């Protein structure tokens, strides 16, 4: 993607996210406080973040790929389950990814 296209993406995404914030302070509360709107908004992050985790960890283009990213993710999951601080989780995941890269060449 060219620099101009990246800038357009950054600006469009930023503007859209700002307008979503502004809408909350501006539209009548009843529009947003519909039970099903609240339901969807409560669960969108879980669906999207899990999809991003999966896509980042085991895909490359159209392929499913098992590599250091999956190793890093597994280590991160263990660290999170042990309540490790964020920085420790990232460092361990990074170390696992680098190790897998070195081992598998």
């Amino acid at each position: 993607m060219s620099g101009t296209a990246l800038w357009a993406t950054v600006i469009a995404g930023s503007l859209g996210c700002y307008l979503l914030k502004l809408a909350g302070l501006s539209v009548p509360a009843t529009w947003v406080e519909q039970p099903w709107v609240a339901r969807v908004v409560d669960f969108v992050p879980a669906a999207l973040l899990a999809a991003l985790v999966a896509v980042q960890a085991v895909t490359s283009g159209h392929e499913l790929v098992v590599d250091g990213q999956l190793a890093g993710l597994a280590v991160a999951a263990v660290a999170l389950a042990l309540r490790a601080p964020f920085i420790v989780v990232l460092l361990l995941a990074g170390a696992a990814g680098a190790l897998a890269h070195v081992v598998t060449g």
Partner: protein
Amino acid sequence: MRNGGVIRVAGVSSPVRSRVLRDAVGLGLAVGLYGAAFGAAAVAAGLDVWQASAMSLLMFTGASQFALVGVLGAGGSALAAVGSALLLGTRNTVYGVRLVQLLPTRGILRRLGSAHWVIDETTALSIAAPDRALARLAFLAGGASIFVVWNATTVLGALGAGALGGPAQAALDAVVPAAFLALLWPRLQRAFPEAAVQRRVAVGGAVVALALTPFVPPGVQVIAAVVAVALAGRPRRTAVAP
């Protein structure tokens, strides 16, 4: 609650004030690590330092920022990247509705300014504050400290990642999914409302995304994963009651 006694005599409120400020600044420092991770992830996805910084300045909502660079990093189109950022940004609309009574929103300029800082952390700080004046203080102090630290650490993360190569690059690639998992993790824990349903939706989202990966343009599967929200079922009757 540790300081319950202090809150109840909050007319004078100086200890409460300083606790609100301390929480706000503490949260600002805590998000700094995420800012550095975002800067690094942005560079790994092909953005330059200026673009990473522009996102932290202008978008200023972490999950959406991570999603946008995550989709670009996976080879996704601009449309898919912006779409997933916007889907995650809908949270902030709901937060705004909750905060509108608490925040300085009289007058167009105040409203435009307040809106930019309506995010997970400032909402949590404001709603936890014991009264309206302190909610406003928590919002402004939290927003300011998070904004400053988030932007500073984004630059540091982006510059740091740009200087890497070889195994360090592989390490960085492994850090990005780990950062997403760390964003997701608290939603799946027992303390989170309806954690079991959150887990079901999360598993559904991951399955949908992986199943579609061979067939759709990169990034589109992330947006399509939003259909997993249907697994949450209908709104609960009890939650609807005023």
